[in-house]
């Protein structure tokens, strides 16, 4: 690991001023990505500003029925919070199906959104990679791509966004609150916070250098009380998703009154399956409709020879998630 300097910030404005003043500075929160990639020579900050003492750790129920999560709340704390388990079970499930107990104690929610891709070409610090070294090319497209994305890809990058929690938060229409170097508060819709690779895969989010996530806000969503996170992977635990589905469903008299579906493991960003939702609203809650909706969502999928299985797997996962929600709900005619 290259030499670095270390500062510990005790107030947010000072931390932002310190990082924004120097392009070679980074915030340090849980460190589970930052330290790993520093050691592998993928990230090269010269200064780390430790923000773990900042007062951004609260997990609060909002009076309107929503949730506000401080950016430094740990994954384990958010997953365990009664308000999350009760109002947004898909989020607590997504969190607890991610990483390991140790990593969940370390990793912050803000950092979770900003975690870097698991593409082995990005992480080896040597292969051509447009994310790590813009303009050098993408090694994955012609290389080992079994875990890579089939949706939202470009000719410059096919790396999968690795977060589970972000998939649930995408379904929940979360907002990301930040504080900028000019002291201005900004709010991003969740879908706008994650950028598709298009022709600049190194730009993963719209924040400027030194801008800090302060909170994630989840609006009230009664449909989310009946929700789940389905994660399919090569081993049963402590593994990234091949395909995941964050789904919520409300059925009235056999008809779908409300539905939320997002996909993980298959796309270059947490993927809101809007075509699924548009197809299913007002439709009968039955398997044939779930399958047709899933087909429509994956129509534009672009697979490699190694990850073509994800196109089928994603459709089956969507159907299974929705069938599970239909099956255990009392409002549905089985």
């Amino acid at each position, binding site marked *: 690991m290259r*030499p670095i300097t270390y500062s510990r910030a005790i107030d947010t404005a000072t931390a932002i001023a310190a990082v924004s003043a120097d392009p070679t500075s980074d915030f340090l929160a849980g460190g589970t990505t930052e*330290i790993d990639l520093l050691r592998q020579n993928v990230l090269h900050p010269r200064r780390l500003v430790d923000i773990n003492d900042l007062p951004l750790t609260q997990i609060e129920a909002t009076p309107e029925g929503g949730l506000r999560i401080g950016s430094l709340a740990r994954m384990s704390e958010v997953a365990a919070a009664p308000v999350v388990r009760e109002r947004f079970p898909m989020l607590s499930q997504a969190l607890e199906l991610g990483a*390991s107990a140790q990593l969940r104690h370390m990793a912050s929610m803000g950092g979770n959104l900003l975690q870097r891709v698991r593409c082995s070409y990005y992480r080896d610090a040597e292969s051509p990679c447009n994310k790590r070294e813009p303009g050098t090319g993408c090694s994955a497209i012609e290389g080992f791509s079994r875990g890579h994305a089939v949706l939202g890809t470009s000719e410059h990058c096919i790396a999968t966004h690795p977060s589970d929690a972000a998939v649930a938060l995408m379904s929940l229409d979360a907002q990301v609150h930040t504080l900028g170097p000019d002291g201005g508060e900004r709010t991003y819709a969740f879908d706008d916070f994650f950028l598709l690779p298009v022709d600049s895969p190194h730009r993963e989010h719209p924040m400027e250098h030194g801008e800090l996530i302060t909170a994630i806000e989840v609006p009230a969503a009664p449909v989310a009380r009946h929700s789940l996170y389905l994660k399919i992977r090569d081993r049963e*635990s402590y593994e990234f998703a091949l395909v995941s589905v964050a789904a919520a469903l409300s059925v009235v008299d056999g008809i779908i009154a409300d539905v939320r579906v997002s996909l993980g493991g298959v796309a270059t960003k947490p993927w809101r399956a809007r075509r699924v939702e548009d197809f299913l609203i007002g439709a009968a809650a039955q398997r044939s409709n779930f399958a047709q909706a899933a087909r429509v969502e994956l129509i534009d999928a672009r697979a490699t020879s190694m990850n073509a299985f994800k196109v089928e797997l994603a459709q089956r996962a969507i159907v299974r998630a929705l069938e599970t929600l239909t099956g255990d709900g009392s409002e549905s005619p089985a």
Partner: protein
Amino acid sequence: MSAQSPAPLTERGQVLEERGPGPVAVTLSVNGVERSLEIEPRVSLLDALREHLDLTGAKKGCDQGTCGACTVWVDGHRVLSCLTLAMTCEGREVTTIEGLAEGDELHAVQQAFIAEDAFQCGYCTPGQIMSAAALLKEGHAGDDAEIKEWMSGNICRCAAYPHIRAAIRAVRDGA
């Protein structure tokens, strides 16, 4: 603040004290004892423990957060010391496998690992025990499926998993 203030100021607050990149004096509280050491800021908690404080219980398996052999507690939470910078632990309490016993009396999980033969080569064992003791405190040892899931961050290449689960069950059941 007045212009005469000795501390350099920016518009938005105090300039942060920047330490390093060379060796700096750091004080860590490890197993209830204040320890002073000189380390570069890039030094991990794992290397600080093993190379500077002669606490070699926590093991370096992968050094990239995938094996769990380096598991210790920081402020009572199990974490990976390989992905933790030592300096981030100033002002926090670090507990390692060396601090688990009460004097000559082994922690219940340590005793159970011996009684249940919960290791073979032993390399992952300190991490397994620190993780298992935390798991029991967290209340995630309800049944074998839950133990498996919540111990999945600790890999055992000898595959002593059934005996590790037996040790955890024994402590859970007060056997």
